[in-house]
């Protein structure tokens, strides 16, 4: 706590697009009120004031892809009472974890004329692979409603109430016609965390897993189901190797599919 009794909050960015921390600033109606309830000690995008730790809550966006960022997450953990990760990159390695399946040296050669200037780890990994994470908010991007719920809960000392069901359930509740059953469109909805409001099926397309796999996800069974709807293996692989593809449940399902295909 700060001297004025307000919780001290810090917002950090690793390899990411900025979109999850932008969701904090996208709380247009609540932002000034939140800023009155807590002390925002470190949030480079929003303010020039920088106050050293320890922090009560550290919010981390982005995945670990460099030695420097690896040092940073360890340092943040040491200085913070509670670490909350924001979004697909911080929780699963993000879209840049596609490098994990490839030769990174070849990747940097493909983009940079002088690859020797580039220092990057061979893998993009979630924060929890390196330090203890107290709470993870899912999404690519996170939902600002979930963010608000988690912050509010933490501040008043209760457990956050986040949906424990899949996108599939959200579709049923909204009355969205199943894109897989009705149109044969590949969809990760049955195995993906709810939170987006089942957006993609409402836009006539399949879920591509922004909120990451459910803990109880049976991705392999889903793939068998997709196959009966005529979805090709390559399409399933593309879907699984997506924005949260490095998450264990999606990764192992993809690996098994790869084995079957070869």
């Amino acid at each position, binding site marked *: 706590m700060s001297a004025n009794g307000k919780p001290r909050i810090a917002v950090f*960015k*690793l*390899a*990411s*697009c*900025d*979109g*999850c*921390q*932008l969701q904090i*600033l*996208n709380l*247009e*109606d609540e*932002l*000034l009120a939140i*800023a009155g309830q807590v002390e925002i000690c470190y949030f*480079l*995008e*929003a*303010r*020039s*004031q*920088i106050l050293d730790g320890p922090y009560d809550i550290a919010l981390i966006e*982005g995945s670990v*892809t*460099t030695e*420097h*960022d690896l040092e940073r997450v360890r340092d943040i953990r040491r200085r913070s009472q509670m670490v909350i990760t924001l979004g697909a990159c911080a929780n699963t390695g*993000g*879209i*840049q974890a*596609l*490098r994990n399946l*490839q030769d*990174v040296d*070849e*990747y*940097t050669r*493909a*983009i*940079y*004329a*002088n690859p020797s*200037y*580039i220092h*990057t780890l061979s893998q993009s990994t979630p924060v929890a692979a390196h330090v203890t994470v107290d709470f993870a908010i899912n999404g*690519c*991007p996170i939902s600002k409603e979930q963010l608000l719920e988690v912050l509010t809960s933490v501040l008043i000392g209760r457990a956050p109430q986040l949906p424990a069901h899949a996108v599939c359930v959200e579709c049923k509740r909204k009355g969205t016609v199943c894109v897989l059953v009705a149109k044969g469109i590949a969809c990760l909805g049955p195995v993906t965390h709810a939170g*987006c*409001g089942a*957006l*993609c099926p*409402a*836009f*006539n*397309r399949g879920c*591509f897993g*922004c909120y990451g796999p459910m803990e109880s996800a049976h991705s392999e069974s889903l793939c068998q189901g997709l196959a009966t709807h005529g979805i090709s293996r390559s399409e399933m692989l*593309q879907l699984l190797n997506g924005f949260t593809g490095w998450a264990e449940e999606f990764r192992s399902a993809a690996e098994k599919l790869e084995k079957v295909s070869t």
Partner: protein
Amino acid sequence: MIATNETRTIRLESMTRVEGEGGLRIEVRDGSLRDVKVDVFEAPRLFEAFLRGRSIREVPDITARICGICPAAHQMSSVQAIETALGITPSPEIRALRRLLYCGEWIESHALHIYLLQVPDFFGLESALTLGKEQPELVRQGLELKKIGNEIITILGGRSVHPVSVCVGGFWKVPRRHELLELRPRVEWALKASLDTVKFLASLKLPAFSADYECVALSHPREYAINEGAIVSSAGLNIPVRDFEQVFLEEHLAHSTALHTVRAERGSSYLVGPLARVNLNLSHLPPAARQAAEECGITWPCFNPYAGIVARGVEIVMACEESLRLIEAYREPVPAAMEYSFHAGDGCAATEAPRGLLYHRYRMNDQGIVQSARIVPPTCQNYRRIEDDLRLLLPGILDRTDAEIVDACEKLVRNYDPCISCSTHAIKIQMNRS
């Protein structure tokens, strides 16, 4: 201060109130400026590499993730590049809806930059959170404008960060006319607020500064260019987008994980973004924006980078005016997306992201699989220009304290609204004096 004949290093760990993280390195020897560099060490995310092997259908969803602040810009440049390769011409209705989506993103991004990132500088405050305690109505106006921009994107794309509706050929789904019309009173309010914004920005005392900029932007004969046009410059350049790579060259320097873009023939810097656009396309602004630009006390073309904030305000007016026009004229595109079939090809496109020209190029095989990708964001194009500006600023302020120098540099850099995440990367301000 340390005596001038000693090596001196000033470091600002990270610039603040910019998108993404990053620094500057300033070298001074014998009291005079030796060199200044934008240091970008943020982790490279290697988009161009992992796009290879992905289906062109996935490209707009993947490229959106380059930047949470301008995802629609990356979606627009990428789908239009692919459409060029496949010979797809979107219907006028699809074209209009894309322009509306883009206007929403300009409003959201420009309001964010003006009110949350840059305006505190003019009040000598460290953030909009602090400014909000002194002038809550001012900050609330900015937040509300930003929110309306986000509402436009959300109605078209489901959410404002990484919207899900854009696809090659058009949209996965388009809104009904009555849904769009519901936005009208909100955008009418935003138009008024944006005009107030320009008046407010015109009242700010802008630091004196002038540089010899080559302004570069898209230009279109019938509208304020956003989604298409020829690439023109204040030095007389006028080329089709397909010639971009002949005229602009990407360089890779040791101090940066972002590539820097320069004019190929002479290695010189150039300026992209709101100031460049207003300078080049003033006559194409719609009436209210044109009037706001002409009455704000700035003579256009203007080569003071601090006037960029006013240009950004004028562009919010433009985007609100255009949004209203597009909403009122809206006809649901049928079909929502043009049909197409895969064939091998290569295509490029440039659009005007909030921060300036955004170029994408893709080569794909006959299965619709990406073989190569090239992405040149506006911030990469402005890095060299930022360094040139700092070279002009620094000699006159080297007698100041480290903190004052760093503060002045940060304020100058903020004019560019740099998006380091877009350039895929973090800045550190480091100063060496020897």
